[in-house]
């Protein structure tokens, strides 16, 4: 007879993420309620919604940082639990929102990126040469090869995002979680980060979940969309169906018009 774990592994093994009626909370504050969502391996899911919609919480449910108070999460074929959460996190790259960093913090760009492999390495192991070399390759890929020695606190917002992306790449993740990677960046930096994300997703065949509150800042590679509002998942489907003025206007409680620029949809509000 199959155990529940075996059944779920077979049933959802092809999925990178399967959330079954998940409710998550910070202390007494319920931030996400009764969300059921599946993301197949290789998908790029854009998660949009207004502030306080529970988008970040959705990401942190996937990497086990949020507290799930009911429902279950199946990540990479394994049921997420306290027992396996550290192991699963090693396979999930997480790029959080840009955070203020103490300019005097004693860590440079290269060492900060190297942290990405520490979880996989485990205790008592020195960083092998292969990871040191890989770090240089990744720094080159994200355009930071000249800044390896620079203190982390001396970087611009866009450069900090590149460091976070580089760190998550060194992890060699199967799932990449991006939380507003373009927030508070200037337009050029936004464009560069989006191209980088698209490039990485395609090259490494990742499953990517990207949170944003700006639909214009989703890369072209995004195939599916999830709409969140007041902690609930209110709609999920393919990108073409997501581009509905009435649906988006309802999501943001304001009139939204979809225009077209060089064949690309652009949202006006």
């Amino acid at each position, binding site marked *: 007879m199959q155990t529940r774990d075996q059944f779920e592994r077979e049933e959802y093994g092809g999925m990178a993420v399967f959330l079954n009626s998940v409710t998550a909370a910070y202390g007494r504050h319920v931030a996400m309620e009764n969300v059921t969502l599946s993301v197949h391996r290789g998908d790029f899911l854009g998660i949009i919604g207004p502030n306080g919609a529970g988008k970040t919480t959705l990401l942190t449910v996937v990497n086990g940082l949020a507290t799930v108070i009911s429902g279950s999460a199946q990540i990479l074929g394994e049921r997420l639990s306290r027992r396996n959460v550290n192991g699963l996190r090693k396979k999930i790259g997480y790029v959080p929102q840009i955070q203020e960093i103490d300019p*005097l913090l004693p860590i440079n760009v290269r060492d900060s990126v190297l942290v990405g492999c520490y979880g996989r390495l485990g205790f008592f192991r020195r960083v092998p040469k292969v990871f040191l070399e890989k770090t240089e390759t990744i720094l080159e890929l994200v355009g930071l090869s000249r800044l390896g020695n620079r203190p982390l606190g001396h970087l611009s917002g866009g450069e900090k995002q590149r460091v976070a992306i580089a760190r998550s790449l060194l992890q060699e993740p199967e799932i990449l979680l991006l939380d507003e990677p373009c927030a508070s960046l200037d337009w050029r930096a936004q464009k560069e980060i989006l191209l980088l994300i698209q490039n990485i997703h395609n090259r490494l065949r990742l499953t990517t979940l990207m949170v944003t509150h700006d639909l214009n800042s989703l890369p072209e590679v995004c195939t599916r969309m999830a709409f969140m509002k007041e902690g609930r998942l209110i709609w999920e489907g393919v990108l073409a169906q997501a581009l509905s003025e009435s649906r988006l206007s309802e999501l943001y409680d304001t009139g939204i018009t979809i225009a077209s620029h060089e064949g690309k949809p652009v949202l006006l509000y």
Partner: protein
Amino acid sequence: MIPEIFQYEFMQKAFAAGLLSGMSCSLVGVLVVTMRISTVGICISHAGFAGALFGLLVDLNYLATAFVFSLVAAGVVGPLADRAEFAPETSVGILFSAMLGLAFLFIGLMPGSRTSALDLFWGSILTVTRGDLLLLAIIAAILLILLLMFFKEVQAVLCHRSVALAVGIPAGAVFYGMLILLGATVTASLKSVGGLLIYSLIINPAAAAYQVTYCLRKLFFFSALFGVLVCWGGLFISYVLDIPSGAAIVLLSTLLVAALTLYSPKKRGAMTGWTGTDQRD
């Protein structure tokens, strides 16, 4: 005059205690300063102090009670500092004053001359015994070994704890391990440095070193160096000027941190942009 100081056995022991206490306290100081959990550190060190006084009051081994009190404090204030959505300063500040209140209560309840209790207040580096030195040496050795063994995890948690957690490092275990090390260091150094002064020896050398380097390895090195130098310098000044050694050590460390904060090469860099080299060392 310098060889004259070392003619006395108590001064030899005092300098050895300065070496070990200065190094241990300033090494754990790097953990506290870099993680910006000074209030947590204050609370744990004063809990250790109150615990030692409790041990003297009820006639138990004061080192054991100091360690237990500091562990309990770490268990209480650690989760408060953990909660990112909640600034821990107020509640930790209340706990700190409660610990100090307990310390005064225990000393007030003590019968007799209270000499041992007062030694724990001000520290008595000139009266340390071989047993005190042995304990200090054991704690210093454990601290150094653990820092070397877990350097990469310590660096990850010190500089960006949430990132460490997200890449699969058991950041909570590393964090609480560091708080336990802080409690053990405080316990071992109480006799030589004193409960009221110990915190300045934890914070000041690390805060001074923080102004000097961006490299965590060098930060540990400079902090330990400054910790030992202020202990030895303070002992020398107290010998020459015939003033209390604990006060001389604390004031010297304060002068050091003030001078390095004023002339911090890092602050100049932070204000004017990175001025170091971007090429690999």
